[in-house]
């Protein structure tokens, strides 16, 4: 039994952290979020490194690594707040993999997934209806709808809507006789678990970065002739954040390992990770804002980018309370 990441997993983490810090300083994250038509110059490199297909089997053009490796990478994209086309692509890839069609994302093509809100009906190989709150559609090459159909997003009507987390574009997608290909595959549940877990892992990274910001500030900011971090009202708040971030990371990695190696505990573990990391992300970013004081409330400070991502993640795929209800269902 060994709870440390392997050398390979650590190498993935370290390389990702370094590259993402270099390609996505927060000024670049802001530019991509708030500048109309800004192009993500880092994507080509990310695709070249094989990150979009990290957990896709080699015979479908991926790297053939596990969910745990994906989770390690997702925490780093959260920490960097890197443009999240990666996460939507992972989700699309997981759905397509289940159908044996992950090759559709070869060559750095980006995926998006429409699920949840809105009704869609299929007639004679075409889709009709609309899906709401769809992430990362602008720029996507492949859109998977309700886990059952594949469409070319260019053939649908895409209306972007204002997003709380501006680092990820949010859209309503309308289908009016849009050509669609049916997707086979019976492993969709697995894809949903992987996606929930990737989201949870990202929230761990988001929370970790917010904690780092709070601790740095608490060491440097002086009031009453002392660093504010020497006051227990502040330092205990930071300790609480650490408790939650460490706990969330631990559960997320457990679930990642379970999805790869222990299917009998994978579902419960993923719900646990989803619930704990969602709460952790929201609470820790909110708490970090309190430590930063008025500074954290300014647009100029970067914390709000993390606050908003954490909040969006906590709502994107079902609430923490939903996940806990699924756990209670199994326990009772």
């Amino acid at each position: 039994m060994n709870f440390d990441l392997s050398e390979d997993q650590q190498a993935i983490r370290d390389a990702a952290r370094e590259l993402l810090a270099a390609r996505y300083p927060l000024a670049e994250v802001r530019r991509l979020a708030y500048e109309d038509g800004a192009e993500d110059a880092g994507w080509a490199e990310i695709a070249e490194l094989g990150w979009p297909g990290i957990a896709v089997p080699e015979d479908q053009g991926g790297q053939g690594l596990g969910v745990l490796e994906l989770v390690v990478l997702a925490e780093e994209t959260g920490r960097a707040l890197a443009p999240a086309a990666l996460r939507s692509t992972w989700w699309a890839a997981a759905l397509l993999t289940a159908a044996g069609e992950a090759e559709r994302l070869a060559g750095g093509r980006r995926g998006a997934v429409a699920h949840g809100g809105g009704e869609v009906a299929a007639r004679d190989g075409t889709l009709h209806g609309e899906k709401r709150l769809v992430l990362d559609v602008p720029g996507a090459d492949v859109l998977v709808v309700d886990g059952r159909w594949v469409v070319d997003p260019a053939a649908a009507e895409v209306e972007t809507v204002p997003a709380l987390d501006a680092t990820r574009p949010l859209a309503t997608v309308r289908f009016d006789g849009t050509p669609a290909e049916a997707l086979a595959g019976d492993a969709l549940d697995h894809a949903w678990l992987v996606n929930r877990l990737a989201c949870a892992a990202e929230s761990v990274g988001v929370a970790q970065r917010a904690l780092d910001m709070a601790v740095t500030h608490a060491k440097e900011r002086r009031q009453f002739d002392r660093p504010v971090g020497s006051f227990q009202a502040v330092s205990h708040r930071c300790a609480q954040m650490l408790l939650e971030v460490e706990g969330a990371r631990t559960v997320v990695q457990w679930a990642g390992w379970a999805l790869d190696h222990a299917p009998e505990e994978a579902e419960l573990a993923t719900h646990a990770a989803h619930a704990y990391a969602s709460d952790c992300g929201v609470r820790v970013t909110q708490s970090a804002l309190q430590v930063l004081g008025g500074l954290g409330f300014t647009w100029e400070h970067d914390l709000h980018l993390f606050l908003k991502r954490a909040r969006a993640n906590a709502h994107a795929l079902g609430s923490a309370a939903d996940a806990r209800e699924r756990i209670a269902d199994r326990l009772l």
Partner: protein
Amino acid sequence: MDLSPSPSETAFREELRAWLAEHHPGPTPPGEAAGFEHRRNWQRTVHARGWAGLTWPQEYGGAGASLVEQAIFSEELARARAPQLANVLGLTMGGPTVIAHGTEAQKARFLAPILSADEIWCQGFSEPGAGSDLAALRTRAVREDGGYRVSGQKVWTTYAHNAKWCMLLARTNPDAPKHRGLTYFLLDMEQDGVEARPLRQITGEAEFNELFLDGAWIPDDGVVGGVDRGWSVAITTLMHERAGLAFTLQVDVQIALRQLIDRAREQGADPLVRDRLAQLWIEAQVLRLTAYRGLTRMRDGAPGPEGSLGKWHWAEVNQALTELAIELGGPAAQLGDDLWAHRWLRARANSIEGGTTEILKNIVAERVLGLPRAP
């Protein structure tokens, strides 16, 4: 990362289970003295198999087992509802401290009787005026020819009335800064000048004692780790306490949680209770995984400040668990002889004993996050 047990770990667990099925001593009899003798005999049975001091090096009579094996041992004993070993403080704190800081003569003298439970150990750190601010303790050890004469008062001394040896922290240099004038002694409890009085707690039981020292004698060879250097030795003891107990405690949480889930299933759970139960289950998984992760980090060295995080979290979870359980009792929770009422009362101490949650947060803030010291 590989969370599945290795073949040798699985083999150890199976061997242990089979052995426990054969040697389980049965339920602990009522009465303090009878209960203690029961646990002492149980430790002797375990020792005869070579499993007392499981992780101690073989040269000191231990089994030289890995920390994961120690964890498996704790899990299986808890699962089998086997009693605690009588000399738990000697095994988890005293022995490791002597191994880390003691002289060869001390190792030869003290370690074997800890394992055999022939000599029970207790811990004399806290005082009425020195709890969280442990280094402010005032028990004085005055130098005389050949040793030290000790006077003062200790409190929260578990097993004092059964103990032969006390890990005693006393002030040898009143002029030095408070952390630098302390010495770590091994005090012989069987002498005039040492009096233990049971301290009744809110559960009605008396797990703890007050310890009154009035001119008690400690010869020079009772000093561990050097005169005036007791603080760092005491830290070793405390870190071993947090790390060593962490595993047993989290296993107890898993067992209590299963009982709570059974109770909720029997009487039906509303959505609020379902939500809290699920959250507790998640937190219990965090405790379990964190305890194992701590073992991985400790493999190459002494326990670190991360153990404080686990102890703090355990206290929170165990308190929340017993609160939910007693709430489920409804009007019957007013009864004084209820199992969960007792557990709920006992859990109140969890965030105080072995380092208050406030002090643990200080340790995490200062030693893990690197924040400046509190005023």
